[in-house]
Structure formats: structure tokens, C-alpha cells
């Protein structure tokens, strides 16, 4: 409970967005519904609304990320906020400035919101607990812990295709142990009432305690993919290839890569998801990635709408506090 509570204000409204844990079903649905209206903005000639005009949002990326950073940046710009992109790896910390000094410097520049991407689990929580009260924090992915906006946009994408979560079988495939995406997805799916969540991967990459999160482990694709409605592939972190945890890329694709044959085990209308960037031929067959069943590019577009909704919601709570 502690630590998660700081993302809600006294009225139970979203103040920071740090993790899926602690967000109840009704707030979850509220965010998804709100995102729906921003998706419509993205389809207009002028893809911009003046909601956050005059606000300054700092993208603080302590580890490299292109997709998440650019979608956050676009989301902020479509809300008419001003955006600062700071690649902390290459700037202040090299000169010996501590994290808190960096944050205070940005506060002195009157920033309103920080988006944090950090290799350490809990980094966004820590920052949210340290910033001035009017500042809002969004977790753009921290260590192995959480990637809540990714989970949110994935739920948004699933709902577009399969509106009733309470009838779904969902399989998450790959390096679950090292994936912040997987943890957030499992939390999100259970909050929304998905009755069957499966994780599939080599034993070395499935955490022992996975059932305590409500997911059932499978070590064979042929068992795990049977009759699922949603196939969520995880990115294989190739940097972990050298470690003893994984066989060769070729061997991995043979056993856990998604191809036509394995996908045929899922329901005929099953959708295929991937948070990106995809490794073609390693975790997913190229043809499947480009097929009609793949919703990978929709996930990207939805990511902007969902991030707009979250930013607008938490900035809305900023205003209420001031009056």
C-alpha cells in the first residue's frame, strides 16, 4: 500500500501515474474511456487541443528509449504543453550533479510534470516522493518493476478488439522475468477481470512466484497458446543472450518464437500484440508481424491517446489542489 498511495490524491483521483497496482477497476475504466476521446483528436486535421497550454513537461530519460519517449513527447505536444527532452545519461549526472539537484533545477525552471524512465526499479516512486507538491510524475518504465502506460495502452488496444475482458484468455510470451511490461500487464489484466492469464517461456525466464500474481506458467508454446484470444509477445532483450539464461537465438525462435503454425493453436480471431521494438525472426515471424492479426502499429497510435488522457487527468488534479 505505502508508496502506491502517493499516486492518488485525497479524493482518490490520479495525482501521479507510477504503477498499475492500487488503481481500481473504475478508475482504470475511467482512464480508458477518457483516452477514447483523445484518440478522436488524433484523427483530425489539427491534432492538437489547448488543454495543457502553458504547462511544461520534462521527459527525463535515464536510459535509452525511442518509442516511449517520442509518444510521450507527441502526447504532450498534442495537448499544447511545452516539452523538454533531457537525456540524463549524457548530461548533468556526468558532471557529478545528483538526481535531486537535477530535479530541483528543473523545478526552479517551473516545470509541471516529469516523465521518468529509469533502469532502477522504484525510481519514479522515489522522485514522486521528493518533488514539490504541485509537480506531477509519470513512470515511463522503471527497471524490472513497472511500465504502467504500456499496460494501459495495451488494455485500450485489447478493449477495441475484445470489449469483454471477463471472457478472455490472454497469453504473455517471452522473457517474463526481466520484463517490466509483463508485470504491469498481469496486474492490469487481473484488475479488469481477465479470468485466464498465462505466461509462456523457458523456465529460466519465468519467475517462480508468478502464480502469486495470478498468472499460470507454461513452458511449451503448444500448450500455452491453445484457445487464447490475445497473444502478447515480449521483446527478447538480446543483451541477455550472452548470459546463461537463454539458448541461441535460433533455438529460442524455434521454441518460443511466434510463427503461423503456433498461432494456429490460438482462437481464429486472436490478436497479436508486441510492445516493440520487434526483433523479426527472433520472437516473432516477420509475416505475422505484418499480418492482419497483428495490432502492433495500433498499439503505437493508442499509446499517444492513452498518454494524453493520463497527462490531462493528472494535470487536472493539480488545478483542484491550488484552489
Amino acid at each position, binding site marked *: 500500500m505505502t508508496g502506491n498511495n502517493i499516486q492518488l490524491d485525497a479524493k482518490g483521483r490520479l495525482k501521479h501515474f507510477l504503477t498499475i497496482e492500487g488503481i481500481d477497476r473504475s478508475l482504470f475504466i*475511467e*482512464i480508458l474511456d477518457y483516452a477514447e*476521446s483523445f484518440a478522436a*483528436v488524433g484523427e*483530425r*486535421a489539427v491534432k492538437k*487541443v489547448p*488543454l495543457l497550454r502553458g504547462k511544461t513537461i520534462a521527459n527525463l530519460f535515464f536510459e535509452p528509449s525511442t518509442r516511449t519517449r517520442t509518444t510521450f513527447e507527441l502526447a504532450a505536444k498534442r495537448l499544447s504543453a511545452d516539452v523538454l527532452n533531457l537525456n540524463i545519461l549524457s548530461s548533468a549526472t556526468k558532471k557529478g550533479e545528483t538526481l535531486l539537484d537535477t530535479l530541483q533545477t528543473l523545478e526552479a525552471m517551473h516545470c509541471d510534470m516529469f516523465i521518468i524512465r529509469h533502469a532502477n526499479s522504484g525510481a519514479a516512486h522515489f522522485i514522486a516522493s521528493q518533488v514539490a507538491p504541485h509537480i506531477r510524475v509519470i513512470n515511463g518504465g522503471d527497471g524490472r518493476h513497472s511500465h504502467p502506460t504500456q499496460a494501459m495502452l495495451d488494455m485500450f488496444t485489447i478493449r477495441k478488439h475484445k470489449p469483454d475482458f471477463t471472457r478472455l484468455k490472454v497469453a504473455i510470451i517471452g522473457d517474463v522475468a526481466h520484463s517490466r511490461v509483463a508485470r504491469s500487464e498481469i496486474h492490469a489484466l487481473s484488475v479488469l477481470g481477465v479470468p485466464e492469464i498465462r505466461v509462456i517461456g523457458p523456465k529460466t525466464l519465468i519467475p517462480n512466484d508468478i502464480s502469486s500474481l495470478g498468472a499460470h506458467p507454461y513452458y511449451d508454446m503448444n500448450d500455452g497458446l491453445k484457445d487464447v484470444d490475445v497473444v502478447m509477445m515480449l521483446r527478447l532483450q538480446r543483451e541477455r543472450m550472452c548470459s546463461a539464461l537463454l539458448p541461441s537465438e535460433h533455438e529460442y525462435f524455434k521454441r518460443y518464437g511466434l510463427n503461423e503454425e503456433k498461432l494456429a493453436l490460438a482462437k481464429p480471431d486472436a490478436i497479436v500484440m508486441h510492445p516493440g521494438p520487434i526483433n523479426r525472426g527472433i520472437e516473432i515471424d516477420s509475416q505475422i508481424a505484418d499480418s492482419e492479426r497483428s495490432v502492433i502499429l495500433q498499439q503505437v497510435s493508442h499509446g499517444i491517446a492513452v498518454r494524453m488522457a493520463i497527462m490531462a487527468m493528472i494535470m487536472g488534479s493539480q488545478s483542484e489542489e491550488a*484552489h
Partner: protein
Amino acid sequence: MNDATTDVKQCVDEMITQIRAEIANNDLSEMLMIGIHTGGVWIAERLHKKLNIEPPLGKLNIAFYRDDFSRIGTHPQVTPSKLPFDIEDKHLLLVDDVLYTGRTIRAALNEIFDYGRPASVRLAVLIDRGEHELPIQADFVGKRITLKQGEHAKLTGPEYLTLEITGTE
């Protein structure tokens, strides 16, 4: 304002009379109609039907364009705006329920111009309660009323439209 139910119907009829005259005088047969969410849409639906306007009705939700966002925050469940036509060089009729400060109309105009550059925009309102804070006037008015400070005129619907006056004693 004791018999509010009939009042709404009378006001709508009055608006129709005025708009018909304008259409006849200015050749506005290709006019597009846009209602402002939610009360304005209810009124617009009635006008749209009775005036036999062919193109579908546009619906505008100005929640993302309000000038008081930084004061009151946003509230979720925003029905997206839907303008199912190209507004470029078209004559538009914007419809709202109550014209008061004029800030809603300001927001609506801003949003409309994010869709294109209309030839003209006219404004029709069910009730004009005066006390505008911006240089915005309606072209067609169902009824002009005066309310005390703190009193609000609120349209409820959508089946039976009723105008409620609420507020301090």
C-alpha cells in the same frame, strides 16, 4: 418561468421561425449545423429535424478547449466531438442551450477553426440570459431572460426538454 416545459417548445419554435427567415434571405440551403454538447446537441437535434437539414448534425464537445481547465480540471467521459463533414468554406450554424458569459462559444469557435476555415458561423441559442463577458452575440434567440446573480438556467433532457432555474434564494 413557472411553466418551463412548454416554454422550451415555444422557444424552439421561435428559433425555427428566425432561422427559416435567414435561410430564405441569404440562400443558406447548404448550411451545416453543429450542436454544442450536451444541451446544445438536444436543441440542435430538434432544429435539424424540423428544418429538414440534409447533411448530418455535427456535435462539438468543447471540454478540451475550456478556458477554466487550470481552475476546475477536466472531467472524464468526454464524448468526442464529431463533425461528419468538411467545414471548409461552408456556412455553419452553431447551436447551444444557454448563452451566458460567451466563453463556451469562444471555446467552440476555437475548436471549429481547428477543423478548417468556414465561410461563416452563425449562433442560435435557446436562452440568452445576457451578462456576456465576451463580445459574442447570438443571431437567433429562443428567449431572452434575466436571472439573479448565482442563479443558473439548466436544460435537462434528452427526451423531454425542461429548463430549470436553480441557485441561491
